[in-house]
């Protein structure tokens, strides 16, 4: 019988109680005696030469304690890119230095060139405004094509705005070209994957303390991966020894990728705290977040799909320009390459894939991973061009996909883009989607919409993603500067309760509830007796944090391994207590028993014995019951899904309403279905936001026009429908102990092409031969497309 708080139970979240009562502790909530505030002076121009910075007047203002400029950080290191990409010709990418504070030049609006520390935020703001910076504005580099063609460079020292020109897989290029050249039919689509701002609701915040007596630093910061942040600060930027720097990511109000990275503000508050001997806190206001958080997407892509006369896919070929902004954020180079190009075979048996990506520096905020990170871009290109091809050759879009799906008996399957998919069943997902969404009833619903004077469209999509990031050996070959294992320590306390220290970080994902479910299931004890500790580098083992839907697949696997070690040791202790050999001990439902007898001891008895080791075989077994495991995955995990949605479109206004959205996903095994469903809901909301509402707009001078919630259209409650989410068609991952695949990003990957395909279907049903429209599909764009069709 399944435990009611074990694997598979929809246990409500224990962390909710503090969030619902205002007792959460986010970085900006932490205050102590002697608190000071940091405020940054930021560039108002996109590109400019810093001629001089005069801080004299600012320094004399009330409450000002210290002022820093780029000069103060010339001797320290830059914030590095985490992934080294080589161009097609074998040359390494360009990696210009990303300083703590801008020095010499400012390179995007919001680029910080100075910081003021004062007694209060207001005093620091006033002083920051009093800094006299003479910055000579230069022509801004905003458009990627212009950036590649021109002789005006974001970084003069590298003499180009092209970071790299990457081919994947270069050895497939000729075969792909030949397949396209000889194909019966080629469908071509040029599209934009719109630039987005992640917009976690908690703005970034960092707070540093310095304890001179021990030469120790403590940094509280809004991070998805405190150990990675510590490593970057210690090994690359400030050189603080890791053992002298504690990084704590307390409650964090959402991340979606934007809080993976180390940012200069973290280094600044650390340096300031040491200089002043007082705590220093910086918290972004929302406009600062828009200007300086790493943005997402921003690809311009041409994709071609070649088909034979029967509709079999022969090749996908893409050329993409990927904006990386003014500086390389930590994973900016991995996102458009190995998280994108490797997925360009999709769910299909297509034999030829070639991807070319040119990464381009511009005078805009850095661009990096945002929920899905490369995989939404891949899925969007594939699933849009497949729909277009279906229309061109007169095929049903679902049937054309099915014809080309990898079949359930073909796993493991080596994709033409270089990955080995371990498991899946895309036809079963599509079957289930057609059933739960009542696809057969669409024609009737379309009639009902048309009776109201509205057009109704149906859109479909199939996706695969690579999660559980990532096998260290593989990513090392591909250019990663870090390993991507994770770690867990399971500490059984003497009285039988547990503290489980994990490298993953929970900022909405519910780890404090889901991870104990795994341990409770394995140990046969109540989940309530198990607490998760995360986010504090002084307490947890070295782990790589949370992104890429990796927490459960990678860190959860480490939890399993550490718990197995605990069980193995506990069996030895139990064998000693029961005076039998280890091999005679069975462990079930929290009881260690001797096979074939009624002799047993409980898990709690063993825990107590481990810590009060009287009459203990010390020569064979150490006291204590605590084990650590590091887990490095053997492969990526491959969640997949079939999505559909129906939209209503008002031809008079161009307004699109998403009437239904169905997501059928294969996440492998599911630990807590309530949390998994919630993760999909959130991804769907963000995906609908990308498809219909959200856009990040810089003008030709590099000014961000969408820098507040009055200018950037965030999805609100009345912009989205109730969703139908189904994960009944799971195929267990074959290579991790829980058989889990990861669910955090699926919704944001699967939904944008689904919505846009539905909008095009709606326009087509109204007699308008519109074959393409770019996101966000605003009323203006829809109306214009229909007028021009």
């Amino acid at each position, binding site marked *: 019988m399944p435990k009611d708080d074990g694997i598979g139970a*929809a246990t*409500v*979240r224990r*962390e*909710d*109680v*503090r*969030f*619902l*009562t*205002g*007792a*959460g*502790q*986010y970085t*900006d*909530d932490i*205050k102590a005696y002697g608190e000071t505030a940091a405020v940054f002076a930021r560039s108002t121009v996109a590109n400019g030469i810093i001629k001089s910075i005069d801080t004299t007047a600012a320094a004399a203002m009330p409450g000002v304690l210290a002022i820093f400029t780029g000069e103060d950080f010339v001797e320290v290191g830059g914030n590095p890119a985490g992934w080294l990409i080589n161009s097609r010709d074998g040359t390494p990418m360009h990696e210009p230095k990303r300083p703590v504070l801008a020095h010499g030049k400012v390179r995007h609006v919001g680029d910080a060139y100075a910081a003021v520390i004062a007694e209060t935020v*207001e005093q620091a703001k006033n002083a920051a405004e009093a800094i006299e910076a003479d910055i000579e504005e230069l022509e801004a580099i905003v458009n990627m094509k212009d950036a590649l063609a021109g002789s005006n460079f974001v970084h003069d020292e590298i003499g180009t705005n092209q970071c790299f020109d990457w081919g994947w897989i270069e050895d497939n290029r000729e075969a792909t070209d030949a397949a396209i050249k000889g194909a019966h039919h080629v469908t071509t689509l040029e599209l934009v994957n719109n630039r987005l701002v992640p*917009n*976690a*609701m*908690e*703005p970034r915040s960092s707070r540093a303390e310095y304890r001179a007596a021990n030469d120790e630093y403590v940094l509280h910061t809004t991070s998805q991966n405190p150990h990675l942040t510590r490593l970057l600060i210690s090994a690359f930027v400030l050189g603080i020894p890791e053992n002298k720097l504690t990084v704590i990511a307390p*409650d964090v*109000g*959402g991340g*979606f990728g934007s809080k993976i990275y180390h940012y200069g503000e973290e280094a600044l508050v650390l340096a300031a705290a040491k200089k002043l001997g007082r705590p220093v806190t910086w918290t972004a*206001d*929302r406009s600062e977040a828009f200007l300086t958080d790493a943005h997402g997407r921003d690809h311009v892509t041409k994709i071609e799909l070649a088909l034979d006369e029967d509709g079999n896919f022969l090749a996908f070929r893409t050329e993409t320009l990927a904006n990386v902004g003014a500086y390389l954020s930590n994973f900016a180079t991995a996102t458009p390459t190995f998280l994108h190009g490797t997925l360009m075979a999709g769910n299909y048996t297509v034999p030829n894939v070639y991807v070319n990506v040119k990464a381009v520096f511009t005078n805009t905020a850095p661009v990096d991973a945002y929920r899905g990170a490369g995989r939404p871009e891949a899925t969007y290109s594939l699933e849009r061009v497949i729909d277009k091809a279906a229309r061109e050759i007169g095929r049903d879009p679902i049937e054309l996909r099915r014809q080309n799906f990898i079949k359930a008996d073909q796993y493991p399957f080596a994709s033409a883009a270089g990955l080995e998919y371990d498991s899946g069943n895309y036809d079963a997902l599509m079957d289930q989607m057609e059933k739960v969404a009542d696809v057969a009833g669409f024609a009737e619903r379309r009639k009902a919409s048309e009776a109201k004077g509205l057009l109704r469209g149906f859109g479909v999509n199939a996706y695969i993603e690579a999660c559980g990031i990532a096998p260290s050996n593989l990513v090392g070959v591909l250019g990663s500067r870090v390993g991507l294992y994770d770690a867990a320590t399971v500490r059984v306390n003497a009285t039988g309760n547990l503290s489980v220290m994990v490298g993953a970080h929970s*900022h*909405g*994902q*519910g780890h404090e509830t889901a991870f104990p479910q795994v341990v409770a299931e394995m140990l046969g004890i109540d989940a309530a007796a198990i607490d998760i500790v995360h986010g504090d580098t002084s307490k947890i083992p070295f782990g790589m944090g949370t992104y890429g839907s990796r927490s459960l697949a990678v860190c959860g696997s480490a939890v399993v391994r550490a718990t197995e070690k605990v069980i193995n040791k506990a069996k030895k202790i139990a064998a000693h207590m029961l005076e039998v050999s280890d091999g005679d001990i069975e462990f079930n439902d929290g009881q260690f028993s001797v096979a074939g007898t009624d002799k047993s001891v409980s898990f709690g008895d063993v825990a107590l014995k481990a810590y009060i080791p009287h009459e203990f075989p010390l020569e064979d077994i150490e006291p204590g019951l605590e084990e650590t495991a590091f887990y490095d995955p053997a492969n990526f995990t491959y969640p997949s899904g079939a999505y559909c949605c129906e939209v209503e479109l008002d031809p008079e206004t161009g307004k699109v309403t998403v009437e239904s959205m169905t997501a059928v996903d294969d996440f492998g095994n599911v630990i807590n*279905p*309530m*949390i*998994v*469903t*919630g993760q999909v*809901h*959130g*991804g769907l*909301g*963000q995906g*609908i936001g990308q498809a219909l509402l959200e856009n990040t707009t810089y003008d030709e001078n590099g000014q961000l026009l969408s820098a*507040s*919630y*009055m200018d950037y259209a*965030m*999805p*609100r*409650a*009345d912009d*989205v429908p*109730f*969703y*139908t*989410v189904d994960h009944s068609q799971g195929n267990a991952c074959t290579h991790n102990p829980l058989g889990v695949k990861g669910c955090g990003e699926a*919704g944001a990957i699967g939904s944008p092409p689904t919505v846009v395909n539905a909008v095009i279907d709606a326009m087509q049903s109204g007699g308008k031969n519109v074959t393409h429209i770019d996101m966000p599909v605003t009323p203006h764009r829809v109306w214009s497309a229909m007028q021009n069709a």
Partner: protein
Amino acid sequence: MTKVTMTINGKSVAGEIEGNTLLSAFLRDDQRLTGTHVGCDTSQCGACVVHVNGRPVKSCTMFAAEAEGAQVSTIEGQANADGSLNVIQQAFQDHHGLQCGFCTPGMVMTTAALLKDNPKPTVDEVREHLEGNICRCTGYHNIVKAIMAASGQDVSAIAAE
């Protein structure tokens, strides 16, 4: 500096503040009631919603001095007298109406105001009423469901889990 007095969650408080101190800053920094969050500074996101004299306000857009003599309720005062979650809070937990928790205090306070005026709202009314509260985590599905449940209405027809 200006002296301000008000009642917060039933307790009389007084503070010395600058005239331009926002109510959100007074609650967070002076009173150390950090459950009220600031998410946007422009009155858009609703993370800072509290009640002043029974009405919901965005505390990032009101001076503390304007609350002189007022009855102020914050998220910290919403639980039942015995410390257990109130009906709205419990519904949010039961229906997974929160993830990262940052927008949650504002969502709970906004819901309380809605249900006071409209004890049995329709789904459309709930969605409309939430136009001033942004959540980036949940896609709103479970927030709307939790609010319907908190109003005592049957939510079994709304997709489960």
